[in-house]
């Protein structure tokens, strides 16, 4: 193997598993160390720079960082990263004076942002400090988007949303609430220099048959929304009899999910024959294998609701054919069928999320009704219009929306400066020795054996009597310290200087996890196999040094390195040293960046 180039910022970035996994590349170990030091406001700002909504995300993030956490590979559980994020939000002091200054003199560019969810607000946050003037249009009366509308208050209190959306709106965004943009054409005619669309995910279509109004939205639900509710844990059970209408993959997801949540009698009904279903063949196979009947050629006619309670659904059997010009023809047979049900899940396609974007503006749309958007620049086919968050590529999560907002903001800035959008700015990195004295480091190198701490909850009785009382209480300071110390400091890197090494074996002998080896060089596969403990986790890189005096190389398997610094402590020549690696992913503006 060629010697590893540790000057490539991506090498060490990948070693910091949590940060690498985070869509916004939040420097996790950096803020965890600050929490351990009790510097909550600074920890909050490290978060705020990267992920914009630390208090919200500290409660609701999908936490891709936690499954990635190295701690999970050496003991059972990862560091409670998300809950630590909440600690810095809970315990910080007033941080308003730490927020970036907004130039009084504007740079002359005026932007329109449509929507006030995480991606839209991130774009505003990144561009306001650069002097852009921003008009923000939001259909509802408050900022937050999905974060406010879809996450229940017992998980995410309103005041947290108010605070963190407020930091951005208070930058001087011209926010127009209760203002639904009805026409992109009209908006574009107002000569904005660029437009960002952050209007969230399109939703599924309703089926408004007789009886729909009487149900009052209780038992007739849009499948994708219901699935989201299940994913969030809001829906945990179903009634006995469930009907799923539709023949696509969403319908398959719905019926199989319903089965798992306790439904005894799930049926899928379609207007077409099974042969004309649009679901993937393997999805249909799996559904049938689970014993769920798919009833074809059933045309829904009516919801039967008695005293406001859904009882059944009425169908007419039809004959299906294809006309000469290729259109589907449904011929009524006059036969009717009524099927009992207490829940109907509609999976009959997506509602058009962008009826307000005229199709003749140069913004191309794809088959599923989403705008065609570049997945790096987030630019649409109309150069001045950008998309981000769920409006760009469909439903993901908050942290992804934030990351996309950062990228869109970079693109908008490059676009208005007349630069190429494809040439993305580099991350800023810093590598600094942590040596304090001969065997002393400026980070807590000892690895604690403490197990993951549980977050305390409010009393159950109290909790279930209120849907606004926050259930989780968050860590107190001592617990936060204990949890923070579980962090292995994966951003403090083992840096090797081959020409200082005397091959005394001291590092190899002391390494608690046997990740260091002297070896003759070879192909990566052979090297990995022949290490003292073979490096079998291919997702983790191995480090290979320059040739040493004996012709061998130092090989380090990064997989379970504890970053304990013992190799460097036991190295008589400082061939190993511990360097803190700070990786700040690029953003449109760069003030207040933490320093290594």
């Amino acid at each position: 193997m060629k010697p590893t180039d540790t000057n490539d910022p991506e090498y060490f970035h990948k070693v910091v598993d949590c940060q690498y996994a985070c869509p916004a590349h939040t420097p996790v170990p950096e803020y965890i160390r600050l929490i351990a030091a009790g510097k909550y406001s600074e920890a909050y700002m490290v978060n705020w720079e990267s992920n914009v909504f630390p208090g919200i995300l500290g409660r609701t993030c999908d936490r891709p960082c936690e499954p990635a956490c190295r701690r999970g590979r050496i003991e059972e559980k990862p560091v409670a990263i998300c809950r630590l994020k909440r600690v810095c939000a809970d315990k910080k002091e007033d941080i308003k004076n730490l927020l970036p200054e907004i130039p009084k003199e504007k740079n002359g560019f005026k932007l329109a942002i449509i929507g006030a969810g995480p991606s839209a607000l991130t774009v505003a946050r990144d561009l306001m400090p650069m002097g852009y003037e921003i008009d923000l249009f939001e259909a509802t009366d408050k900022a937050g988007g999905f974060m406010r509308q879809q996450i229940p208050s017992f998980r995410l209190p309103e005041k947290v949303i108010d605070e963190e959306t407020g930091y951005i709106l208070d930058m001087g965004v011209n926010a127009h609430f209760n203002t639904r943009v009805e026409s992109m054409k009209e908006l574009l005619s107002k000569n904005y220099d660029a437009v960002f669309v952050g209007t969230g995910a399109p939703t599924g279509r309703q089926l408004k048959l007789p009886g729909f109004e009487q149900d009052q939205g209780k038992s007739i639900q849009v499948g994708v929304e219901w699935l989201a509710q299940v994913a969030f844990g809001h829906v945990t059970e179903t009634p006995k009899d469930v009907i799923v209408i539709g023949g696509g993959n969403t319908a398959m997801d719905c019926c199989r999910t319903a089965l798992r949540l306790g439904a005894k009698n799930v049926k899928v009904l379609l207007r077409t024959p099974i042969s004309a279903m649009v679901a993937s063949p393997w999805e249909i196979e799996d559904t049938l294998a689970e014993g769920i009947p798919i009833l074809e050629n059933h045309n829904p006619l009516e919801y039967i609701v008695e005293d406001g309670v859904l009882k059944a659904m009425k169908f007419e059997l039809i004959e299906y054919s294809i006309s000469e010009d290729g259109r589907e023809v449904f011929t009524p047979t006059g036969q009717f069928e009524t099927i009992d049900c207490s829940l109907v899940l509609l999976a009959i396609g997506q509602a058009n999320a962008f009826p307000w974007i005229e199709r003749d503006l140069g913004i191309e749309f794809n088959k599923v009704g989403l705008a065609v958007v570049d997945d790096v620049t987030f630019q649409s086919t109309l150069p001045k219009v950008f998309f981000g968050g769920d409006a760009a590529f469909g439903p993901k999560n908050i942290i992804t929306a934030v990351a996309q907002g950062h990228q869109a903001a970079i693109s908008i800035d490059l676009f208005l400066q007349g630069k190429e959008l494809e040439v993305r700015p580099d991350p800023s990195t810093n590598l600094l020795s942590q040596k304090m004295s001969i065997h002393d480091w400026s980070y807590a190198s000892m690895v604690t054996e403490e197990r993951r701490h549980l977050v305390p909850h409010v009393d159950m009785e109290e909790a279930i009597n209120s849907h606004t009382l926050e259930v989780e209480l968050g860590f107190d300071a001592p617990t936060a310290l204990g949890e923070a110390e579980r962090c292995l400091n994966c951003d403090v890197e083992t840096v090797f200087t081959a020409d200082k090494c005397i091959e005394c074996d001291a590092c190899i002998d002391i390494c608690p996890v046997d990740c260091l080896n002297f070896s003759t060089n070879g192909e990566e596969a052979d090297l990995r196999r022949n290490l003292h403990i073979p490096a079998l986790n291919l997702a983790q890189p191995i480090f290979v040094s320059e040739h040493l005096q004996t012709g061998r190389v130092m090989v380090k398997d990064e997989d379970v390195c504890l970053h304990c610094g013992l190799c460097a402590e036991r190295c008589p020549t400082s061939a190993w040293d511990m360097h803190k690696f700070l990786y700040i992913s690029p953003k449109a503006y760069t003030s207040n960046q933490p320093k290594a």
Partner: protein
Amino acid sequence: MSYKIPTFRHPNLPKNDLGYTTKDYEGAVSTLCAGCGHDSISAAIIEACFEMSIEPHRVAKLSGIGCSSKTPTYFLGNSHGFNSVHGRMPSVATGANMANRNLLYIGVSGDGDTASIGMGQFVHAVRRNVNMVYICENNGVYGLTKGQDSATTDLGSTSKKGEPNPLEPIDLCSIALQLGATFVANSFSGDKHQLIPIIQAAIAHRGFAFINVISPCVTFNNVPGSTKAYDYIRQHMASTNTVDYVPHAEEITTDYPEGTSENVTMHDGSVISLHKLDTEHDVHSRRSALTMIKDYKAQDKVLTGILFMDEQSKDIHEIMNTTTTPLRNLGISELCPGTEQLEAINELHR
């Protein structure tokens, strides 16, 4: 400075026949200087015992005084240990061995402890063929007292800030051979590939197994003028043979050209597989070993490997026809048979 090592180990750490990992053979964190060769020897002992599935409670570690003699704290933390007076480890080892022949005795000493203050003790343990592994961690310098020349410092060798040594060195391997040692090896702390199987062969050997391990002192004797520095040894090291230790249950798979390899079956049934690098040398000839050491030294080479072994050797218990039962397992009447028995024995000699 870290006085404690994290408790986490690699999740794929292999287990031996006893179900133990190397963690079960570790000791406390070393307090020796960073980069000390002695730490590598400790690691080699850990690996050797792990691979041989030796029960830690069946091992007694013995040492005297010096940097080397501190190391038993740093390996086999679950074994018995005795840190004796300077140079007196051989007496303690002999006594312990006489009292309980069922334990594995590992003595660790240094060049000061063995070749100076303990020389009188060392030579008698050799000639008595006490069944033990005797490792001399030889760095050619008094590290614990800030770097004076020792009795094994080569003529003309200089330590850090030192004058060239004007005195002839003691060659411990030659002395052991002359005194009738039944297993003599020379090795280097920086070559575990060689050292680990040599330690395993020494453990399998019945009788006194002497291993001289050149172990650079990074603080006082790892300088360009020293003949016991990492660089010097790497440049001047030569080997009589490479060694594979093969437990008796395993098939021998090494495949060397005819006439260059030799399999020696030990009394416990295990096999030492030697691949001769110097075909002139006969590992069963004491005279050949002595000659080789001299010849290589004349060429400025340090000869390593197993220099001599006599796998048929009789240890002190066999020579003296002692009881096979450890003394602690004998009853009072067997240990002290009474006046009548004493009278009877005395009568035989009148």
